[in-house]
């Protein structure tokens, strides 16, 4: 039995979510191969070869995978994945985009966003925005799975010495192309990898007021997130959204500022180790999940917190 893990990377670096995905593969058990498909992605393949528990890295370095478009990735992973018992990818917007295509091409169903491995064919995953946890058994010949990173502690990025083997690209059907990208430029830690996250909600009132959170975050090395309400209101861009349909995070410390605590937001952060809520409405549902609640006007509390850290 062999497991193929599709690496999450940006050609230059291997993304942390890959290490969580490898951890899920280890929990299933079997030889773990990692596919690094991209263009000029040798560095990412080298990093994957060093990860704990990897038997072999398959490097497919080709212009067709430069942006890892869903059509090309779906075809490639279906072709390379045929001989494996399991195919795993991180439940990122890249993995969610291409892996269902792979499953359909292999004529199997897929299991999305698992948070726990019960056995080689049985997995737990949240449904109904995290309001229930379903345990699902698959009798498909190949188990095609996305892995929610917060459900698995990452394997070590060092210590492995897997071989790297070159794989070949499959034909590009030429029906999709990359047009452009607007990526958030920030020196702050990525939300899914941050140790501490400070998130703002509708209570921030506007985008300018997020400066307070950025300033505080930079002081303590935190990432900055937002609730859907703040993103929908246009205060901040979509990549900052924490919640069921945004990013799922589980930092050591999550500080919710001016966030009421809608169920879909809680679904994205309730696995955080310590949750702090600052809200002037003492009835806000966020206090029901917070370890430390401070009922206060955030416009007074945040500057004060900033001055005292």
């Amino acid at each position: 039995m062999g497991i193929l893990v599709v690496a999450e990377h940006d050609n230059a670096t291997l993304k942390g979510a890959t290490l969580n995905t490898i951890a899920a593969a280890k929990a299933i058990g079997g030889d773990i191969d990692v596919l690094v498909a991209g263009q000029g992605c040798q560095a990412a393949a080298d990093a994957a070869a060093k990860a704990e528990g990897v038997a072999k890295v398959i490097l497919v370095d080709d212009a067709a995978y430069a942006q890892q478009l869903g059509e090309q990735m779906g075809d490639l992973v279906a072709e390379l994945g045929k001989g494996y018992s399991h195919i795993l990818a991180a439940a990122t917007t890249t993995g969610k985009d291409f892996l269902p295509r792979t499953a359909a091409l292999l004529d199997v169903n897929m299991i999305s966003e698992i948070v726990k491995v019960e056995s080689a064919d049985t997995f737990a995953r949240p449904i109904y925005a995290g309001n229930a946890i379903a345990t699902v058994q698959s009798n498909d010949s190949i188990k095609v799975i996305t892995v929610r990173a917060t459900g698995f502690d990452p394997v070590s990025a060092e210590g492995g010495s897997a071989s790297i083997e070159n794989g070949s690209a499959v034909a590009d059907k030429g029906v999709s192309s990359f047009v452009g990208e607007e990526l958030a430029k920030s020196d702050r830690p990525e939300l899914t990898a941050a140790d501490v996250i400070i998130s703002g909600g509708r209570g921030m009132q506007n985008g300018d007021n997020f400066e307070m959170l950025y300033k505080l975050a930079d002081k303590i090395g935190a990432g900055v997130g937002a609730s859907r309400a703040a993103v929908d209101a246009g205060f901040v861009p979509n990549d900052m959204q924490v919640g069921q349909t945004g990013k799922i995070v589980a930092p050591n410390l999550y500080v919710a500022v001016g966030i009421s605590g809608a169920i879909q937001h809680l679904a994205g952060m309730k696995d955080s180790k310590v949750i702090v809520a600052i809200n002037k409405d003492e009835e806000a549902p966020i206090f029901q999940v917070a370890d430390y609640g401070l009922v206060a006007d955030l416009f007074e509390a945040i500057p004060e917190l900033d001055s005292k850290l």
Partner: protein
Amino acid sequence: MKVLVAVKRVIDYNVKVRVKADNSDVDLTNVKMAMNPFCEIAVEEAVRLKEKGVATEIVVVSIGPKVAQEQIRTALALGADRGILIETDEKLESLSVAKALKAVVDKEQPQLVILGKQSIDNDNNQTGQMLGALTGMPQGTFASEVAVDGDKVNVTREIDGGLRTVGLTLPAIVTTDLRLNEPRYASLPNIMKAKRKPLEVVSPADLGVEIKSTQTLVKVEPPAERSAGIKVGSVDELVEKLKTEAKVL
């Protein structure tokens, strides 16, 4: 250009979800049902394309029990032209749904297929992409902007790092994210008009599709409860607790 929109009947998003006492599934007895919110966004996008003169006909399709006709009628009231219900009481998994939708695509030959990116019950986020693979169509998933230009469509996608735009050759698939548009409400006259719009009911067998299940739901449990902690009286006390008690600062 013909646009096909797939819609799903799900629990209303305002309803508090409860797990059955025997842990066999979520309890849907006497629960209010509605169109999946992401599907509403898909219908709205199609209607806007028609209002712009880009789309000429909107066909809405759903798969499920007879009562799913309600959600098709809702889509018709919002501006879709006709509906198709693939009626079945079988348990549906994404691959079967995608195969049934492929059969409809083969018959209807739409230039654009719009679906919600996921349904709020199973949260799978699979069907659109599977349909893409089965039909060979390219896909713009998690769309926040759709711009049709001749025989191409540019789709701006919400991705983890920000926004990405892909160019797709039609026919193509779009799956909707939250910020693509804000769906309208159906007016009373349009709800009345929708009752007279055509709604065809077919069976999976009529389409030559076999509904197959490959997954067993072993159990469904409520998530681990997180209990409320304490209220602190001041910023000083908060900093103190975080440093000495929680040791996270």
